[in-house]
């Protein structure tokens, strides 16, 4: 068998280049490469029918350190080609491969065709169908060359610059630095006669995005103090790594030798990261209005309207403080939201001055029953309104309260009230009569972001926060939130973790 030609880069062990990042071709599939793979896959198809190919690729460069020493440094990449074949009267059959050579692609096509032949379906294309609508992906800034170009050596230099100050103070630093890029597209051959543009609305034009994140924790060697700082963005230049390092170190020093406090309800000053950690479970519920409007359980279900014989949601009702507005705009350069091409363009306000004004919807719902014809996945990134108060001013105006750096291990307890539990971490301080007086041992909280956003006393200026995407190749969900001072925040027990 003759050797099949490779696409752009070599995959065999003997031919592997010494430095992966300098391999011929990019680290993620380009638009032209995706088109070429699609052309090859469709050329391999036999038996007629339709072909659909889902192409995605990601590259991730990461560096991890602990106890002031780098423990991991890697560059990883992955390509995924999902081939779907629907042969005449067959059900769609699928096969996935991560190899780009002809032999592998052809094998994937054959496997998909075999699976398609296992079932049957109605006649393809029977009837009349009008021209497919064309959607244009909302413009957005989601690619940064600075992120893509952050080399392994440069990541090492950054890590050293973050470790050195902590080490000089006799502290232990641990952190994680990651840059990633990903691309994806869905291409197909179905119904060419109905298409006016390149992509049918059920496909996805090519897009690529980047994301960077940097976070670190500094602890003292006695294990009583811990400070954390972190930030993520699609653009590496928006992340000031030295400032993060300095803040984490400062918090660590300030949180040493904490004292135990009685759990209970406290006025809390939540730093933006803490606000985002708790509000995240709220914004996730903005996803699909079909749930409450289908009579299924949701925090936004209002109940049945017997007179009109339908299920109502809380759209139009005031749900949180009137100073709160949560919105997103796919074109917002400070956010960097990866959007689908059928997604509603422009600014979408989910909560407008406390009133629930939008929930996500599927494309079918929009076309069949709503004013527009776009889908909305919910708050895949969001900006929350704020005020003018600084954290220092919030402290100054607090008679007795707590300053919280962040929450961790947040778990949902009740879906209707969005009641959640979690832990405070990496810096908790007691405020008395307008001054921070001592570091406090961490608490477990049991609170709902809905209750929290209804008990606001002061708001600060919104800033970007750390919102990493844990899934490999996953799209980011950025957030810009303010610090908040909230009354009657419920802490239910103390914990020993720092």
């Amino acid at each position, binding site marked *: 068998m003759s050797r099949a030609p490779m696409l752009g880069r070599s995959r065999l062990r003997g031919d592997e280049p010494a430095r992966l990042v300098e391999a011929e071709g990019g680290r993620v599939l380009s638009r032209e490469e995706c088109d070429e793979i699609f052309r090859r896959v469709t050329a391999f198809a036999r038996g007629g029918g339709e072909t659909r190919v889902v192409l995605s690729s990601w590259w991730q460069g990461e560096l991890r350190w602990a106890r002031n020493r780098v423990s991991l440094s890697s560059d990883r990449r992955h390509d995924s080609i999902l081939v779907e074949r629907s042969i005449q009267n067959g059900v769609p059959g699928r096969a996935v491969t991560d190899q780009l050579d002809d032999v592998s692609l052809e*094998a994937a096509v054959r496997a998909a065709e075999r699976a398609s032949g296992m079932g*049957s379906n109605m006649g393809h294309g029977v009837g009349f169908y009008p021209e497919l609508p064309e959607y244009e992906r909302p413009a957005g800034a989601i690619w940064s060359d600075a992120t893509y170009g952050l080399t392994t050596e440069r990541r090492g230099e950054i890590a050293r610059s973050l470790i050195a100050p902590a080490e000089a103070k006799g502290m232990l630093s641990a952190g994680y630095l990651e840059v990633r890029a990903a691309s994806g597209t869905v291409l197909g051959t179905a119904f060419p006669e109905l298409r006016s543009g390149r992509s049918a609305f059920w496909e996805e034009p090519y897009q690529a995005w980047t994301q960077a994140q940097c976070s670190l924790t500094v602890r003292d060697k006695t294990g009583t103090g811990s400070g954390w700082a972190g930030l993520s963005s699609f653009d590496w230049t928006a992340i000031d790594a030295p400032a993060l390092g300095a803040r984490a170190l400062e918090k660590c020093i300030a949180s040493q030798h904490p004292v135990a406090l009685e759990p209970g309800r406290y006025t809390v000053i939540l730093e933006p990261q803490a606000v985002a950690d708790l509000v995240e479970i709220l914004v996730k519920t903005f996803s699909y209005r079909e749930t409450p409007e289908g009579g299924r359980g949701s925090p936004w279900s209002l109940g049945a309207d017997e007179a009109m014989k339908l299920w109502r949601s809380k759209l139009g009702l005031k749900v949180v403080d009137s100073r709160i507005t949560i919105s997103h705009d796919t074109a917002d350069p400070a956010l960097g939201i990866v959007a689908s091409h059928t997604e509603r363009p422009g600014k979408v306000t989910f909560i407008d001055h406390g009133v629930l004004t939008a929930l996500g919807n599927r494309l079918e719902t929009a076309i069949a029953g709503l004013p527009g014809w776009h889908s909305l996945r919910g708050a895949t990134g969001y900006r929350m309104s704020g005020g003018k108060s600084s954290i220092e001013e919030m402290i100054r105006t607090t008679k007795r309260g707590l300053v919280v750096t962040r929450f961790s291990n947040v778990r949902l307890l009740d879906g209707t009230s969005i009641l959640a539990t979690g832990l405070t971490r990496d810096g908790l301080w007691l405020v008395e009569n307008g001054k921070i007086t001592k570091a406090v041992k961490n608490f477990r909280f049991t609170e709902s972001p809905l209750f929290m956003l209804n008990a606001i006393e002061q708001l600060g200026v919104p800033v970007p926060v750390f919102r990493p995407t844990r899934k490999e190749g996953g799209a980011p969900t950025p957030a810009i939130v303010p610090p908040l001072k909230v009354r009657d925040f419920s802490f239910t027990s103390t914990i020993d973790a720092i």
Partner: protein
Amino acid sequence: MPYGTLPTRIYRFGLLAAGAVLLSVPASAQTLFTWPDTTVDIAAYTTVEECQAAVVRSLSYTDSRRDLTTGVWVDTLPLDSLDVQGPRPLSAAVVETARRCGERFSGADTVSLSDFYALFRLYLQAEWDDRARTLVNRRLTAIEDSNSTERAAVLDSVLPVLLARGSRGVGAPRFAMAEDLVNAWAPRVADRVKRLDLYTAVSSFFGTDPDSATTARILRIAQKVGVILDSLTQRDIDELTSATEAFGDGAETGGDFAQRYYALLNAVLGRQTFLDSLRHSTAAYVKLKRDNWAQATGMLPESYRFGAPLGEHAKPIEADIWLGYDPSKGPRPTPGRVSLVVFLDNHECSGVPRVPSRLQGYCARNLVPLRRLQARFPDLEITVVSRTHGHFLYLKDGITPQREAELTKQWLEAYGVNAPLAMTTGDFMQLPDPDSRRFERLSGNDINYSFGKGGEVKNGKAFLIDQDGIVVRVRDNVNRYAVYEDLNELIDILLEREHHLSRVAP
């Protein structure tokens, strides 16, 4: 010494040799995808449930292969005479699967009765009818004489299986076995209403025209039913009539007792009796139907299936947009013409197709049979009634009511349905922002053609109207069953009457 010491040279030579071997192996000799062995080992199935699962899998596979290998879309084909008789015998492959797996449970005299129901089905699937009969008799014999409730329950569970009702997968119905069982055991059911239920169940048949064997069976049953009916108390009758379903003039068989007794009476009279009455006049036909209904339910004839429009006057169709018809010519249905008014709405069958697999003619099961009706009866006046929704399939941007009507007409014509289209528009409400959902209001056609029952007229519902504007038949769904059910014969008779009247009219 050049090239290093001897051990080094041997080591280097070994490396070179290994490299030569590796490089000589074709780099592209990758393992191609091979399908895993999916052969089912029946011998590994040790329980009756597993055998049932194997048979169902075999049945599903056989069905899907039939569609795949023939490429024929069965849903749009007319029924053939075999299909009208109901479920067919199972294929040889399915029977073989049932036999191979059921071999270890084949001793009907000795097998445990704890898996009675599943075993009973398995025997029928294996076409071991004698063993099935032995098993069910064993089961019934094991019940104490005083426990007629359990006896009735057992008969209640085996009869639908024998009659191939609802539960698929046992092949052709076994009417003879069902009748024998009921004759042998129903007299030992103390509850007369329950006994009546069992007898009427056995009187069921497929299609609309019972053959001679079925007619004989029905007549035998009718005698027994008559005896029980005469003995019913007023309380028994109230219990029966309160269970009456009164929605439309749907299937003549199945459902609760009143439906079945009504169907039994119809079958005893014979379909030709009804058709003859229709040849005479629609009023005679309606009277016969209503009188049978009254006898079955004990209610007044005027209450015939409350909400069913049989005998009602059909109102003129309202439309904001007419395509294929000039409304200045007069109302539709046209007085003096036999008409079929069909409510069709592609949004209910196609919805908003979101993936290519949804663009596969999901509405064809209604439209293709309608095309056949149109071709078979050129003198039948067909009108399609629909409404705007603000979109057509996935198309919404820039859509107008006129455009939506034109697209709907194109959709109908793509299936060969050339009937005029009556489209109503503007009958919706929009909830206030931010909810903004759109809800369709009832149109004038919904109100007129629901005949007091309320609610919108569902997609596919068809009304057969005689030349005097009287509703003769309503079908919930214009699908392939509509093509060969009595609808065809009714249309024939009505058209014949129309032609006769046009000949004798001055």
